[in-house]
């Protein structure tokens, strides 16, 4: 129980520091991304032990999809635009997603296996 409370407190602390940074600097990057980078830096520099964050963050991530439901249901208010601009919205979004997935996916696969092989060769030498 204590480990959950500790990790939640740290996660929310980073989020609100992120909000503070956005409020002061008007930087066009969202508070949650800044909070995430901040938490990552704190963990990477070993200023916070990973174990302090583990339980709470795993719980958040396990249920993350749920938190998208309220925003997604907002689709119901925009059926008119979806209808009149359907072609450009749908083809633009899905077509582009497909192109990026295929090209970048293939590229990532080639690069990842290539560098892994190189790494292994180096270890063998």
């Amino acid at each position: 129980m204590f480990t959950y409370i500790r990790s939640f407190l740290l996660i929310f602390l980073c989020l609100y520091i992120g909000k503070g940074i956005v409020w002061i600097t008007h930087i066009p990057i969202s508070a949650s991304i800044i909070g995430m980078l901040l938490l990552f830096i704190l963990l990477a520099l070993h200023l916070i032990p990973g174990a302090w964050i583990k339980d709470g963050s795993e719980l958040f991530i396990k249920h993350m999809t749920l938190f998208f439901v309220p925003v997604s249901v907002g689709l119901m208010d925009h059926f008119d635009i979806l209808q009149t601009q359907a072609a450009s919205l749908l083809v633009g979004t899905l077509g582009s997603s497909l192109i990026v997935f295929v090209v970048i996916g293939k590229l990532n696969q080639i690069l990842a296996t290539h560098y892994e092989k190189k790494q292994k060769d180096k270890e063998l030498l």
Partner: protein
Amino acid sequence: MMLWMFATLIIFYSARFFSSKFKNPINNPLLVSICVLIPVLMVLHIPYSTYFHDNFILNYLLEPSVVALAYPLYAQLHQIRQHWRVIMFGCLLGSIMSMVTGTLIALFFGATPELAATILPKSITTPLAMAVSHELGGEPSITAIVVVLAGLFGAIGGMPLAKLLRITHPTAKGLTMGTTSHALGTAAAAENDFQEGAFSSLALVICGIITSILAPFLYPLLLL
């Protein structure tokens, strides 16, 4: 009243229970929840604002769950050091390609410049995408929807497509999911495999930052 929050919880977790029983990409908990909730709200004449107001807690938890992604990122730090070239190259190229193809296809199909600006940041996470859309003169509320659409693409089609294209390396699979489908793709990748989730959240952050920085410069060029 939090009636609609309980409705969301019950519908989402039943959908998740059934999707774990019957493995099928269309059987996606998010998609099922939307397809059940929207018709119910419409039949009962419940305005979206009422529904959203009841669900403010769930929506509020979206932000800390993005912050929580720092942990899988940290847990894979040694992997990141090993693969940084793949990560940076893939994310830079992926971000530019996503913005260029999305905007050009939309313009080709008769989108106004405003609508093109609305679609441009579709593959990055919702709060970032809405900020970019607003900055370019787009409509942030519609951006939220195309972001979900791009997310659903990865969450539903990502794994089968990766299998079809023989994208098997967990690094490649995770990065591609995050590049194409932001946090929704990351949620799907993380459910599938811890390492994939880590690389997906990495791509989500890096592509989000790259897109936010490059969009204001790239957008005017695309309108030429």
